[in-house]
């Protein structure tokens, strides 16, 4: 394992020292290299063209049409986009996605950090604890949805039983919009804590112990050492997790599909559900494609932010 683990992401120099040896046969060699390169990259390029670039271009094309999935397409120009602007459900889905992101990202990151800080300390069975926190990450969204469907059941669910047994009012997790929304956040947080923990654990390992030793001489221990050393030095990790969690929060689908079906009403309908519903239930494929285009630009903008940042860090 040593080779990967100790490597850095820095680029190897373009021209290796051994390159001079090939000097005389450079022209021939270059052609052979290009052939080998295209040959090896070929399968990936074919797959990407057929199943990524063509569909991406077609998404834009479809978004300018009315199309039911079979038969003829009717050219509409920008009509789909103008309809979207008038579409209350679209705005509700966008708002839901935004609110979901604003709530779930900080909660997930705080819990991931908490778990990492705790399980970074020496304690018995630490490896087991870490593994157990990570277990929900490997459970499929559908299975998670089913597990929590039962837990959140307003009548028979154990959650309401527990709440009433300790004197709390029971909650209608399925009929009440805000409660249903909260239930989605609870489930996806449950799924995501392990991931946040692992990324933060890695970040914590990157902080040199000398920092803590030096700081403790200055009296910075406990909260102070967290406030002035750990937290600032985890900055890049936190930033990465924030951007990454925002992007994934735009893609939450499986849990919602099983747990709430976007309801009650449209209270848990996110952009991806709305696009799916328009495309494959309502058969408004042109309209769904237009939603897809909007989603694409949102995610692209977020990806660029992350990219810029990770580039800067690689240089530093």
């Amino acid at each position, binding site marked *: 394992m040593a080779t*990967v*683990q100790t490597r*850095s*992401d820095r680029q190897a120099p373009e021209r290796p*020292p*051994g390159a001079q040896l090939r000097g005389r046969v450079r022209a021939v060699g270059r052609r*052979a*290299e*290009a052939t080998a*390169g295209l040959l090896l*990259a070929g*399968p*990936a390029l074919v*797959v*990407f063209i*057929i*199943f*990524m670039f063509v*569909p*991406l271009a*077609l*998404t834009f094309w479809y978004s300018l049409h009315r199309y039911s999935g079979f038969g003829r397409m009717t050219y509409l120009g920008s009509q789909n986009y103008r309809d979207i602007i008038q579409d209350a459900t679209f705005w509700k889905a966008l708002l839901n996605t935004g609110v979901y992101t604003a709530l779930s990202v900080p909660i997930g990151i705080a819990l991931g950090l908490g778990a990492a800080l*705790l399980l970074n*300390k*020496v*304690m018995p069975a630490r490896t087991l*604890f870490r593994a*157990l926190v990570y*277990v*929900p*990450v*490997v459970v*499929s*969204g*559908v299975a998670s949805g*089913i*597990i929590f469907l039962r837990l959140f059941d307003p009548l*028979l669910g*154990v959650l309401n*039983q527990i709440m009433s047994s300790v004197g709390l009012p029971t909650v209608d997790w399925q009929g009440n919009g805000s409660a249903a929304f909260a239930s989605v956040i609870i489930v996806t947080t*449950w799924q995501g804590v392990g991931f946040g923990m692992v*990324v933060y*654990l*890695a970040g*914590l390992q*990157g*902080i040199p*112990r000398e920092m803590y030793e030096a700081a403790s001489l200055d009296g910075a221990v406990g909260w102070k*050492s967290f406030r002035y050393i750990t937290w600032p030095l985890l900055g890049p*990790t936190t930033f*990465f997790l924030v951007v990454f969690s925002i992007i994934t929060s735009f*893609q939450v*689908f499986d849990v919602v599909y*099983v747990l709430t079906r976007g309801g009650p009403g449209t209270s848990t309908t996110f952009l991806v559900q709305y*696009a799916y519903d328009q*495309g494959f239930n309502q058969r408004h494929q042109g309209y769904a494609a237009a939603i*897809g285009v909007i*989603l*694409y630009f949102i995610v692209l903008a977020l*990806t660029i932010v992350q990219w810029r940042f990770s580039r800067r860090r690689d240089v530093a």
Partner: protein
Amino acid sequence: MSASAAAVAELAEGPHDQPQSERPAQSRRVVMVRVALAVAGVALLMFPMYWMLRISVASTSELANLPVRLWPQEWLWKNYIEPWSQYPFARWLWNSVVIAGLSVVLTVLINLCAGYAFAKLRFPGRNLLFLLILSTLMVPVQVIMVPQFQIVVDLHLLNSTGGVVLPRLAEAFGLFMARQFFMAIPDELLDAAKCDGAGHIRAFWRIAVPLSKPLIAVLVIFTFMWRWNEFVWPLIVLTDPNSYTLPVGLQFLIGQFSTNFGPLLAMSFLSILPMLIVFGFFQRYFVEGVARTGIK
């Protein structure tokens, strides 16, 4: 990304002590408090898993009798047995195995080759192509699913293994990982082979591939996990109940069992069991892979 990369290196090397914890003045009581916190947190996180197992052996009548006891009062093993004959569960399991297995093999092959080409070989359009591919890293499947579905229909791949597997091979994650990995292999190693008369492809096969076991391990595990758990794309492509994968089959069972949660949770557990076993064995790689790439 690279900060977490270097960091995880150490993480994976084993449970050595962390900086803060080596301060000598660590009293027993502090450790006890931490363990208690960890136990409480893990218990909270594991409760839904426990509840799945507990409900999976319960009858409808036991579940209707409130409050439901924390420990099973009866063990209804038929919840685990009967759905196999009532529904094509074995078929779904097999479909999932085939789809995940095939996806793993193809993903590893394609990405090893392409990752090496993008890292070590110069060919026309290389940088532009890589940028284009990388820019799709975070594109949700919902963005392209409408035309992608049409393409699958046109290629006569509806309800087929290929229809699920092939479109998902166009995923930038594996290629990105592979390229990063091969960039770290010194050119001198490969040039030595070339001096001995080996061509580029032979140098790749003889030198680079044998070195890439850790890369292969991470690709295998992540591809397996994602394809095993994948839902929305199989849901679109697989319309015939016999061609379902486990997650699609499970969501179909929700409607079938409605309030009879025992067998539903039994089947849910069985559907995630293979994944849990894989996780148990390769836990280290999961943790390492996530943190190293920092990408889902």
